[in-house]
């Protein structure tokens, strides 16, 4: 057992480091200055420029086939690139959904000339894609969407509303799942399309989140007309296409990085005086620190097991399905606990060491437990796919969508 690269991996890591050194600034030890740049208003333009540079050098999507600008490389090399890139001050995150989920769905269903048109600009950061799935009445049960698409000659007319659409306010294109037949059971009446976000009738309204940020949006469709050529997959087979997208989502979700963790919690516990002395000497505090340390290590090492499989060219086991189930509540609970250590001052936004950082975890954790699959849905997935337990009995299974809830 070891954590070492193979010869090929080590050589590649070296190549990546040289390239990053030549093209980006390495992060300093000072986390403050590393973070400050994320508030840069010109971030999107910088991110696009960085994405273009990366794509030109062949690092943007290494696992993609060469014809689409990839290298047909093993996923482990892409991981190595990302590990190294994380040490540099570069703007990231705008392209993950598009390249991780939307374009792979396009690759599975779009026509060759459409791929010719859309893949390259997406890869080079010139066009950004979003995923229009969730709706006000369909979150975890995403097949329950109501946005409808009706056939009109060679076109389709879309009406309805999407929500929680990450990045829609800066996206150029999107893939959208619609209901084309409400007279059949819900999974059977769906169809997937892609569309230009500037198509008349598409309106994007940002949603201010509890954290104060506004990365999510509501997207309204009012008589949006798109040609049938923008359909992905067959009419009524949208669910199959959506599963392609969502399967890629599972690969795209990683660990949130850069937040405060055990080291900062320990420093806080050393500096905090409780009734019986420094908090770090208190057994309750020590128990908590130990439990979160075991989780933190467990997640890191679980990821190493997955990477081992990738490095050997094998399919990883299901172990990575635990990551968000553990990471999200840990983030929330540890944030709340650290704030408790600070006493009443734990609510203050300034002048208290670590307060803002742990508050961000506490707030962010509440969202992270929901985004990309709730704690509850992820447990269902583990129970069904890993342990082979039966799916829930569905009262909506054989009922036409428009008859649901009417009995």
């Amino acid at each position, binding site marked *: 057992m070891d954590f070492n690269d193979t010869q090929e991996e080590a050589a590649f890591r070296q190549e990546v480091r040289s390239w990053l050194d030549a093209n980006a600034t390495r992060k300093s030890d000072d986390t403050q200055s590393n973070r400050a740049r994320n508030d840069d208003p010109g971030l999107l333009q910088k991110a696009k420029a960085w994405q273009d540079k990366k794509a030109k050098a062949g690092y943007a999507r290494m696992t993609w086939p060469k014809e689409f600008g990839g290298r047909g490389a093993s996923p482990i090399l892409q991981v190595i690139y990302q590990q190294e890139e994380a040490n540099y001050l570069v703007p990231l995150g705008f392209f993950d959904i598009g390249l991780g989920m939307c374009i792979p769905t396009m690759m599975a269903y779009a026509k060759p000339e459409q791929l010719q048109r859309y893949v390259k600009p997406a890869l080079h950061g010139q066009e950004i894609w979003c995923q229009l799935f969730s709706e006000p009445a369909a979150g975890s049960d995403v097949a329950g969407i109501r946005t409808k698409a009706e056939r009109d000659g060679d076109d389709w007319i879309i009406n309805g509303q999407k929500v929680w659409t990450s990045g829609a306010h800066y996206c150029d294109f999107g893939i959208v799942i619609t209901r084309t037949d409400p007279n059949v059971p819900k999974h059977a009446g769906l169809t997937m399309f892609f569309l230009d976000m500037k198509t008349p009738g598409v309106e994007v309204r940002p949603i201010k989140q509890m954290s104060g940020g506004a990365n999510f949006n509501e997207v309204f469709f009012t008589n949006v007309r798109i040609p049938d050529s923008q359909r992905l997959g067959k009419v009524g087979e949208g669910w199959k296409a959506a599963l392609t997208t969502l399967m890629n989502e599972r690969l795209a979700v990683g660990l949130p990085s850069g937040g405060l963790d055990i080291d900062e919690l320990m420093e806080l516990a050393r500096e905090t005086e409780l009734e019986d002395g420094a908090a770090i000497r208190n057994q309750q505090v020590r128990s908590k620190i130990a439990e979160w340390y075991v*989780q933190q290590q467990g997640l890191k*090492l679980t990821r190493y097991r997955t990477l081992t499989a990738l490095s050997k060219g094998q399919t990883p086991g299901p172990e990575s399905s635990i990551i968000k189930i553990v990471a999200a509540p840990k983030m929330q609970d540890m944030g709340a606990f650290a704030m408790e250590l600070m006493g009443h001052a734990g609510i203050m936004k300034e002048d208290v060491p670590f307060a803002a950082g742990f508050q961000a975890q506490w707030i962010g954790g509440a969202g992270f437990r929901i985004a990309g699959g709730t704690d509850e849905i992820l447990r269902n997935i583990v129970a069904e796919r890993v342990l082979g337990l039966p799916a829930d009995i569905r009262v909506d299974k054989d009922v036409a969508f428009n008859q649901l809830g009417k009995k």
Partner: protein
Amino acid sequence: MNFDFSDDQKLLKEQVRKFLADKCPTKVVRRVLDGNETHADDVWKGLVDLGVPALGIPEEYGGMGLSPLEVCVAAEEIGRAAAPVPFDSSVVLATEALKLAGSDAQKKKWLPELASGKAIGTLAIAEGAQPPKPRNIRTTFGGGRLNGKKLPVTDGEAATFAIALANTGGSGDRAVSLVFVDLRQAGVTKKRIETIDPARKHAELTFNDATAELLGGEGEGWRLLERLYDAAAVYFAFAQVGGAEAAMWMARDYALQRQAFGRPIGSYQAIKHKLADCYVKLELARSNAYYGAMMLTEDGADLPLAAAAARIAATDAYDFAAKENIQTHGGIGFTWEADTQFHYRRSRLLALSIGGPMAWKDKLVTRLEQKNAA
């Protein structure tokens, strides 16, 4: 990145697993639980034939000279079967104590006996109520004679020898030493004691001027014990991972088969989420155990921290799986005839015998503080 066992190690694991599935089904665990035998000697002899006690013993001492990783895969399978054999006591604790602290003469004499299964060793630390500490050990060793009482001692009846912690007159942590004592002598009395896990027999050992000798330096007992427990924590973690996995699948199989309100109980989220949590804890434990094994193998600087993390995660996983296995079974799971009790009992035994989670959490943070200070 190569954070996995080798194909050879996986093959060994498969071999031990097959043997135990065949020769140590739950009815053998029940036989020992209900009966009088000290352990399942038929299963133990088979494991000896497979070479399990010899795996981690150097070739010069009659063993197979393999790495800790081989012992880890065997431990996982022993744990999965809840096998009623002296693995934790003899293969882990006694063997590792001799390897760690034994003189060349002691190793030459006893390691080959352990490797061949001729001898069974055990560790004798606790003295009844109160967790053992250097200041509360009353058993004394002096002038080559051991006096005092040790309980509970795992496999105390079956064991050929014990390694005991005894007061040797120093002060502070240096008050105690490890002492090797042959149990086949007039100065030793063995008495079976009742415990929560009758599938693993325990004894009270009384020493009355028993002939004994130091194992390791005088006054070094506590320091050696801490190091021994770090290695043991890793092996125990694998046994706990194996047990947790077995309990989880036992619960899952029952949840598929048992119907309530017109459907399998495994289709209810209350059961599914509980079992998903078993899986989450199991994988956290497995990953931490792997790192413990890796540090143990390369004698890495991170071993004390990795061992503590493996111990805490594995204890949590096994405790949780064992108790929720009973819960998933409902009333039948609480009967004497159900197999659920084996893991419930074993999980508590393994959780307590080398120090419970609270103590290990405290140790982990101490080690984290030391690492950060360094």
